[in-house]
């Protein structure tokens, strides 16, 4: 272990091919290059490198203990000078690295395995690649094995749970809906917190990343610390996700066929437990007994036929078919690499009549024009369409199914659907609900999306060691939403309404970089400099119409277009950037990375048009030190630390300039006529700028016991400053508030990931996992006077010294008993109003009065921030069989479940959760379990801790059982390899969470609520306003074939 390890390799950027290298007929289409400075006198070793299904081009082959290395050519062939008793190290992006002793052989053929991630594999970083060994930043690299064979429609669903520091919340589990993605927790109070997405070098967004067919993806890198993200400057502050698609490889064309088919269904564990018919009627009787007769309860009792007990949630789900087919043609020649693919995914939604289809194509070609010039083109059109259901408390199928009284039959004797307005049941609920099957039948909602990403590049080796690369690309997308709510959909009368929303964008990116790599003896330096320019035009057209005279015509020409909710909006932004990076490496032991980016953005105020985002990092491969040379168990060990500054530019396109909008001002005689004025909407704000994240990261990477154990640890401490807040100003200015960069918060955490190859040999067993812990999240500054931000009817409080959006509620500590009343325990509502069987609340300020939650007795109790998030993988292999299991979980967060609270308002006639029935207080002699209040208890609308819903869960995210058919039996059929498998997503979960998906955090309030939202995206982290859709349980069988 006291030898030098191979020097840096670099993807995309050309360095200094040496003489030996030039002697080879090497194709550098993907621009991997190598360099070496010290040559030993040795023999030539050659061979071929392949993976389990193809030859591999561009694999780095290095002589261990020297700086000699080379790359495999298009046929996977390599040739290298090496000492006959030496060892060769093979490494390749997305694949493991393997060492082979030469043992005097002159020909060595190697098969690389992509199943384990090891320390010396190559990872994609911003504007380049690096050996993982030489990395100083905190980056998780996920290879194709982490995404293949999963019955999902986008890569985020596949990688969920597989990377430390990454949280993915499927707020709407309908297929194709966007998840919320957060790296290292939310560190912004009011602006965007989404990471930056980079697809094959093109900076884009989540919608485009989701559009990619997961089988096209070669690797996903998650960049977490400032050393890794600062090269993305004002957009790196929330972390970066880099997606690299598969490129051409292999000498002969190979055809890959991936086939999957199966079905999705609902796991009944995810239903809200609600009352059945007899329980519902009993509860209604008790409400009357406790609070007096009322229409809903009277109707509930009188309308019940004594037997109807509809399980509404059982009505709305279906066994939805799932299909996923893709075919690709991959190959290369002396002058070209190509990868062409097509894919089709059709995933039915588990809610009846919903589904999602994705059609995708990709062409990635690279041409070598001569020894110095290369060009390439990457074009990927994707089209998706989905049929959707409305999303909301009472209007979604799952919402209506949760709350619909169980005494109403699905169909009335006359064959029509039963609902709360059916003649026999009219009055049963104060809130009118459609039969969920009516929603499914009658509501029309569609989304059609087209994404086209096209990027072309030219690379020019100007001189030895110096490479210029320029690329120009465009990303165009179009997303169209259409809805129609017919006049026949309850609640009646329904004004038939249609909406049509069409948003288009085109985003241009030009990047120009120079890369210089030089090795001086034991010193390796690599310099990167660049200039980029990106520009986006957004165009949104929205139309709304109502009063359709007939449901026969559902396009907007059939109704009256509403001028006040129809129009078009345009927006635009541009960013100009200068970037630079220097990597220095001494003997492969001591690593230094310094990066810098200067961003100028159209979004920033004129006083802060440009920002500088520097970072520095050091690494020490301590295992290379001589004092550890005796430690044979240690394959590699590295300590690294980084500090840097990144930004969050999600402040809105025009927040910094004064905007004038048109306004109507009539004049004239008679009925009057309109004139146009331009009125002030926002003031100029020349000081407005990015939010700044200052992040320190320290980490350890270890590989031990013949690479059978690897382990990575990271600690981060992120101080975000200049958080955008809306600051109150005297209204005498003509404005109520002004956006200013004044908030501050700190978040710290620990991340662990590791892998242990327990058994190798005929029976293989591998265990891996990742764990992310949030140690601290603290708001340090808010506005000039530090006054707290109050959200969501006063239930969410963000204050200095606290966490983001902490919940404020009355603290329920049991149920009021007759003895409590006699002893004078204060009652909510005051003496004589509160009764035995009501919630008993903590009198926080001990004044003998229970004040409301937003006043003196409100108590901060919990938040919706996971303290820990983890994923566990285990795989077993025996001969050609393998079994892989991915488990996932989280703990520490609560949501305040408004759906829970809406449901318990039995007085309104909605169905009630079983939680409020079982163990309830009935009388002093039947006090229940002491935790559940009486029917019709006082203060049902008051937020209290009994409605908190813990979101901790443990889930079997995926189980995959596969069989590789032996090659011998396939040769006759011209099949090079064939694998068959069964893959099951979301097989089972353990959670105390009730209703839907504990991994969902819904950001929308109840419809029509007077919510006090924070500025920006108006999120409320801590509330779940409607039953969330359960995650589909998907069973698929599949086959992967290579011809």
């Amino acid at each position, binding site marked *: 272990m006291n030898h030098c390890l191979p020097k840096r390799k670099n993807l995309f950027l050309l360095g200094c091919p040496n003489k030996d290298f030039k002697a080879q007929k090497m194709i550098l289409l993907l621009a991997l290059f190598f360099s070496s400075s010290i040559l030993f006198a040795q023999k030539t070793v050659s061979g071929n490198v392949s993976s389990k299904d193809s030859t591999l081009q561009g694999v780095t082959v290095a002589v261990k203990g020297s700086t000699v290395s080379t790359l495999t050519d298009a046929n996977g062939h390599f040739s290298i000078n090496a000492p006959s008793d030496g060892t060769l190290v093979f490494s390749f992006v997305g694949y493991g690295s393997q060492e082979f002793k030469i043992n005097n052989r002159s020909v060595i053929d190697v098969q690389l395995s992509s199943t384990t991630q090891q320390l010396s594999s190559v990872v994609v970083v911003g504007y380049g690649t690096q050996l993982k060994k030489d990395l100083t930043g905190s980056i998780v690299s996920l290879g194709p094995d982490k995404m293949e064979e999963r019955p999902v429609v986008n890569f985020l669903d596949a990688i969920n749970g597989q990377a430390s520091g990454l949280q993915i919340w499927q707020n709407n589990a309908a297929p194709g809906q966007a998840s919320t993605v957060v790296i290292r927790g939310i560190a912004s109070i009011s602006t965007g917190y989404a990471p930056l997405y980079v697809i094959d070098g093109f900076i884009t967004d989540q919608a485009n990343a989701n559009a990619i067919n997961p089988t096209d993806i070669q690797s996903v890198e998650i960049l977490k610390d400032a050393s890794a993200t600062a090269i993305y400057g004002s957009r790196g502050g929330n972390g970066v996700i880099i997606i690299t698609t598969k490129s051409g490889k292999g000498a002969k064309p190979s055809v890959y066929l991936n086939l999957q088919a199966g079905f999705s269904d609902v796991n009944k564990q995810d239903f809200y437990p609600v009352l059945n018919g007899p329980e519902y009627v009993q509860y209604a009787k008790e409400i009357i007994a406790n609070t007096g007769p009322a229409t809903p309860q009277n109707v509930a009792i009188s309308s019940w036929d004594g037997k109807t007990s509809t399980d509404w949630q059982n009505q709305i789900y279906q066994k939805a078919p799932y299909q996923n087919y893709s075919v690709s043609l991959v190959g290369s020649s002396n002058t070209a690499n190509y990868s062409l693919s097509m894919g089709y995914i059709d995933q039915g939604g588990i809610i009846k009549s919903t589904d999602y289809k994705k059609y995708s194509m990709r062409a990635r070609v690279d041409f070598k024009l001569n020894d110095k010039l290369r060009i390439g083109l990457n074009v990927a059109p994707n089209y998706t369409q989905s049929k959707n259901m409305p999303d909301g408390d009472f209007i979604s199928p799952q919402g209506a199914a949760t709350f619909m009284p169980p005494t109403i039959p699905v169909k009335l004797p006359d064959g029509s659907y039963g609902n709360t307005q059916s003649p026999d049941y009219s009055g049963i609920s104060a809130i009118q609900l459609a039969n969920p099957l009516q929603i499914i039948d009658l509501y029309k909602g569609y989304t059609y999306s087209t994404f086209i990403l096209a990027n072309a590049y030219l690379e020019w080796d*100007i*001189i030895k060691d*110096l490479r*210029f690369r320029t690329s120009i690309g465009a990303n165009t997308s179009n997303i169209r939403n259409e809805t129609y709510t017919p006049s026949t959909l309850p609640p009646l009368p329904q004004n038939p309404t249609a909406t049509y929303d069409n948003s288009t964008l085109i985003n241009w990116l*030009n990047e*120009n970089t*120079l890369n210089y790599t030089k090795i001086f003896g034991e010193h390796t330096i690599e310099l990167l400099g660049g*200039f980029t*320019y990106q*520009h986006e035009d957004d165009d949104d057209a929205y139309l709304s119409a109502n009063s359709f005279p007939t449901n026969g015509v559902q396009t907007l020409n059939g109704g009256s277009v509403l*001028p006040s909710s129809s129009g078009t*909006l*345009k*927006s*635009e*932004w*541009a*960013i*100009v950037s200068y970037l630079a990076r220097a990597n220095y490496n001494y003997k492969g032991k001591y690593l230094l990375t310094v990066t810098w980016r200067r961003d*100028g*953005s*159209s979004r920033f105020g004129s006083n802060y*048009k440009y920002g500088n985002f520097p970072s520095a990092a050091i690494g020490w491969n301590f295992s290379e030190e001589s004092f550890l040379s005796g430690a044979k168990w240690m394959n590699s060990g590295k300590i690294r630390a980084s500090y840097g500054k990144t930004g969050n530019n999600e402040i809105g*396109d*025009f927040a910094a*300039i*004064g*905007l*004038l*909008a048109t*306004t*109507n*001002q*009539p*004049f*004239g*005689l*008679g*009925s*009057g*006529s*309109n*004139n*146009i*004025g*331009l*009125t*002030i*909407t926002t*003031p*100029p704000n020349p000081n407005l700028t990015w939010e700044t994240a200052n992040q320190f990261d320290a980490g350890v990477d270890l590989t031990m016991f013949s690479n059978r154990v690897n382990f990575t640890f990271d600690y981060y401490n992120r101080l975000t400053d200049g958080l955008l807040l809306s600051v*109150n*100003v*005297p*209204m*005498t*200015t*003509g*404005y109520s508030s*002004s956006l200013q960069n004044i908030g501050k918060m700190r978040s710290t955490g620990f991340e662990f990931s590791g892998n242990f190859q327990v058994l190798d040999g005929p029976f293989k067993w591998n265990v891996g996992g990742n764990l992310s812990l949030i140690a601290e999240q603290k708001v340090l500054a808010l506005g000039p006077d530090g006054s707290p931000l109050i959200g969501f009817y006063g239930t969410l409080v963000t204050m200095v010294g606290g966490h983001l959006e902490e919940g404020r509620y009355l603290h329920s500590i049991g149920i009021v008993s007759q003895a409590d009343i006699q002893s004078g325990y204060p009652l909510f509502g005051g003496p004589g109003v509160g009764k035995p069987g009501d919630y008993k609340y903590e009198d926080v300020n001990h004044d003998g009065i229970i004040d409301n939650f937003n006043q003196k007795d409100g108590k901060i109790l919990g938040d919706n921030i996971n303290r820990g998030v983890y994923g566990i993988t285990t795989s077993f292999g025996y001969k050609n069989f393998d079994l892989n299991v991915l488990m996932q979980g989280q703990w520490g967060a609560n949501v305040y479940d408004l759906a829970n609270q809406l449901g318990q308002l039995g007085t309104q006639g909605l169905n009630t959760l079983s939680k409020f029935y079982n163990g309830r207080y009935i009388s002093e002699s039947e006090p229940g379990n002491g935790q559940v209040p009486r029917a019709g208890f006082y203060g049902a609308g008051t937020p209290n801790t009994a409605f908190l819903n813990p979101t901790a869960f443990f889930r079997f995210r995926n189980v995959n059982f596969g069989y590789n058919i032996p090659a011998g039996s396939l040769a006759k059929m011209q099949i090079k390899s064939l694998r068959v498998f069964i893959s099951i997503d979301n097989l089972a979960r353990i959670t105390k969470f009730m209703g839907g998906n504990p991994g969902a955090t819904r950001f929308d309030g109840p419809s029509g609520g007077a919510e006090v939202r924070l500025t920006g995206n108006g999120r409320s982290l801590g509330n779940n306003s409607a039953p969330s859709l359960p995650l589909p349980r998907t069973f698929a069988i599949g086959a992967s074939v290579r011809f």
Partner: protein
Amino acid sequence: MKTINRKTSSLLAILLLTFISCSKQLDIAPLSYVNSADFYNSASDILQAVNAAYAGHRGVYVGKTSGLPPIFQLEDVRADDYDNGNSGDDVMGLFQVDGSSQWYLWNWTDTYYAINLCNTVIDRAPKVDMDDVLRNRYIAEVTFLRAQIYFLMVQDYGGVPLVLHETTSFDASVVNVARSSVADTYTQIITDLQFAAANLPETYTGNDIGRVTKWAAIGLLGKVYLQEGDLGNAQTSLRAVVNSGLYKLMPTYQEVFAPTNHNNAESLFEIQQLANFAGSPYGNIMATPNWGGAGAGYNYDLPQVAYYLNSFDPADERKVGLTATDPLGNVYSVKYLDPAMTTGFNGNTDFPVLRYADILLMLAESIGESDEAYGYINQVRARAGLPDISSATPGAFIDKVMNERRYEFSFECNRWHDILRMGTDKAIQTMNNYFSSQGISKVIDAHDLLHPIPVSIIEVTNGLVAQNPGY
């Protein structure tokens, strides 16, 4: 190596050129809006800014911030004749509000938004290359609007922060403005109105009809003088309006407010409404929840039935069609309800700010008991179908004028200010008489004659803006 250097340097030169050409790209115009830094450069720009100031002024009357107009709360519900329908909601009428009430927050937000729009024109127009007469007309229009708003404010709150320039900075030293005295506020109002009167045309044509005229400015000046107690100046101004001969009473009371009679011969200035563009919300605001027409009913500014509605002279034609009764028997005003309205909050009925009947009654008030004064009053009574009154009619002259105003200006936001004009003692007495007549135990004192200052402005200025006494 020389070749290399040439290549390299030429490449760097290309890159550098790219840098320079791209830096300009960061100045991006917002296509769906106008960048205020690129505006206010031409006469046409200033005209659009003036129109925006009118719209902002309209916002004070229709409640731009909340969609609910505070003005009916402050000027009518506060007074004796009007009420809020929702039980427990008549905190304004019962003097139970303090500065934390949203009505004040909304009122100040709407008001100063409009004032900033006026100030923008006043500051920007002088820098534009345009015809001087037109420039002064534009400035005069918004000066009137600003004065009219400050006039409402000074009556409601006493002296207020006088902001006279566009807000261009949020520095604390600039934005924190203390309240001026009542006298200084009135001085500013009069200065503004005198400028307006000197620079506005007497009339407009076509689609400009409805803009502020010279006579509107002079008429409002008369109203301001009258409210201040300067009867001489009031009389001079108001008599000038009458003598202009440009205005007359409409033949019937109902024609004054007809949704198709905008800016009629009786109108000196009114809030312009236009269905589907800037529709009137008042029909819905005043309707009861069960009124049965398009849009919700808000129950605001309902008439006191026994105390007010039933006290109309039975022959008074002003009561005809003034109110309606909903299916539950609740009475609400339909004075501003456009019968052709199909979408809620979207009527076509203008709202009067200053009309000739007001000029006549104010002129009578400023002259004092005399045949001439009764002559003006009787013009108004005659249109209402009521017999003449004279010095022989029982009662004090001022009470007879006030009585006429009480029925002439129903739901026109004049009542509270008319009560205030009678002086502290009489105003308190009027209100307390009303309370006792209704069996309400409330007794008000002098501090109740001013509304409270919204607490948010006090907090954000750290008390620089002072609260009114007693709140």
